[in-house]
């Protein structure tokens, strides 16, 4: 190992100096403080009082905590695979050598530029049950389908009541309906996949053409080529986006905060939203800090699991 002179040591630390200070002030100190507060009763107004594990204990019995945890996990379980799948599919479509390719790419990318607040407002309006575009477009085909089902059921001797129910079928009230609000938020996540698509596109372009040509000569079908060339070659990029997706869902705040405020009936209260409310509207700093640490550990475990699984499915060449 080469010797490092005192001068080199000082220069190196000086250049990294601002960042080292940043680590201390904006990472180490907050994490330590959060750990300390999580064992305290603290409202920001008086100094913290040590209460041991009370905050954690109370969270275990806090209904809203569990609801927010469940909501976040449900959202992650659906939106991460959905956005990954949709992004790969779109990237493949956008990779076809077409004349208007650039236009398509720009259009797909545009939504990911929009500030989350504006996205939330736009979709609040789109999902409006009476005046929204979504239901306006959904209603005609849905009632047509309902009428058809009613007719078919009529042939099999269904009661007038079931038939009427099918005939009067209407689109859901989305954000005003606790059963549909989460679905609406999950669908919305697909709209913002532009950045992921661009990353996948770059990944696709890095796959050597010769691999496809060799597979074609061997008589592999297009689907086989996708399965045995594209997917394995793309797996490091899929892995990267999976990690980003996992971290992203635990950061998810702006859109539901503005669009639904966590409702109706807490159906879209996400973990970080409850953390924010606990800290800044209820001034339960101790509980919020405990939640922050729990969140940190969950992310560590989830990304750790993703890394452990990577050995089985990620191909590095």
């Amino acid at each position, binding site marked *: 190992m*080469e010797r490092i002179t005192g001068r*080199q*040591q000082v*220069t*190196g630390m000086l*250049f*990294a100096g*601002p*960042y080292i200070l940043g*680590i201390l*002030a*904006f*990472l180490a*100190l*907050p*994490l330590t*403080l*959060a750990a300390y*507060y999580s064992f305290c009763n603290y409202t*920001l107004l008086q100094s913290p009082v040590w209460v041991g594990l009370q905050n954690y204990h109370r969270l275990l019995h806090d209904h809203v905590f569990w609801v927010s945890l469940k909501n976040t996990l449900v959202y992650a379980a659906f939106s991460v695979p959905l956005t990954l799948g949709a992004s790969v599919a779109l990237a493949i*479509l956008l990779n*076809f050598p*077409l004349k208007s390719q650039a236009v*398509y*790419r720009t*259009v797909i*990318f*545009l*939504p990911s530029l*929009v*500030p*989350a*607040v*504006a996205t939330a*407002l*736009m979709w609040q*309006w789109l999902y409006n049950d009476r*005046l929204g*575009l979504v239901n*306006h477009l959904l209603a005609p085909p849905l009632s047509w389908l309902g009428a058809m089902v009613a007719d078919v059921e009529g042939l099999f001797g269904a009661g007038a009541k079931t038939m009427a129910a099918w005939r009067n079928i209407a689109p859901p009230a989305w954000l005003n309906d606790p059963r549909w609000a989460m679905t609406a938020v999950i669908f919305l996540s697909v709209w913002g996949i532009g*950045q992921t698509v*661009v*990353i*996948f596109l770059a*990944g696709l372009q*890095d796959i050597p053409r010769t691999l496809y040509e060799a597979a074609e000569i061997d008589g592999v079908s297009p689907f086989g080529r996708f399965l045995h060339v594209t997917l394995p070659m793309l797996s490091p990029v899929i892995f*990267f*986006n999976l990690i980003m997706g996992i*971290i992203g869902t*635990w*950061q998810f*705040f*702006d859109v539901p*905060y503005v669009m639904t405020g966590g409702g109706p009936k807490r159906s879209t209260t996400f973990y970080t939203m409850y953390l*924010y409310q606990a800290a800044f509207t209820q001034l339960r700093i101790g509980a919020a*800090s405990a939640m922050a640490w729990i*969140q*940190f550990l969950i992310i*560590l475990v989830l*990304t750790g699991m993703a890394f452990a699984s990577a050995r089985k499915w990620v191909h590095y060449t």
Partner: protein
Amino acid sequence: MKLSRRILVHLLLLLICVGFIGPFLWMICTSLKTAKEASHVPLTLLPNGLYLHNYKRVLDNPSFQMMLYARNTLIISVLATLGTVLSSSLAAYSLAKLRWRGRTTIFVIMLLSMMIPFQVTMVPMYREFRAMGMIGTTLPLWLPAFFGAPFFIFLLRQFYLTIPSEMSEAARIDGCSDFGIWWRIILPLSRPALAVVALFSFMGSWNNFIGPLVYLTHEKTFTLALALQFFDSRAGGANYELLMAASTLVILPIVVLFFLTQKTFIQGIATTGLKG
């Protein structure tokens, strides 16, 4: 590619694009409707005419001072971008090119810290800024940028590793200091990477919502994103024609910026995903 296949892909993409651009068109259409038109059942897709009065009402609204918020957002974003570019580039140079004990530790900490969402440190950070009397000012929104951002340090470090060391060594022999090497060789050579960092940190700062929500307390200091949310909560889910006009005005500068910097932008995103 066969013609039939080509037509199929075109059709698919066209359909998808309609879905992606539809919300924008709907927003603009709504912003051009009168209040009566916007809440009329059954709803009409296109506005009756170009009714620009909503935009005038948003811009003239004394409790929604668009220009002031735009100025606030611009100042915060420019300062944050400047801070991020400077500090991240210095740290990245140190991690990529300088030899000192502890740099591996710092690098590992940096990698790990990329996994920590803002919300985890949000509460104690608030406490820190409160102790320094900065709550209600814009300082917490740009001051930390001067102390490095892990993701951008990582990005720049990867880029600096590709710059041959012979260049800096030659300059060193000619009597150039480390600061001189960074300023005269590394910075000019890394212009494309710096542009990516600048653009991303500018966008991140411009679109940031939770930061201003936590730290800003006076309407005079609000950013566009926060003001838009405030505008919405005061409207109480009504007057969508005004809300859509305000949203259009907030989105417009970013879209313009995107079209001006499209190439840097797309290349930037592509490389951020691959170097990982």
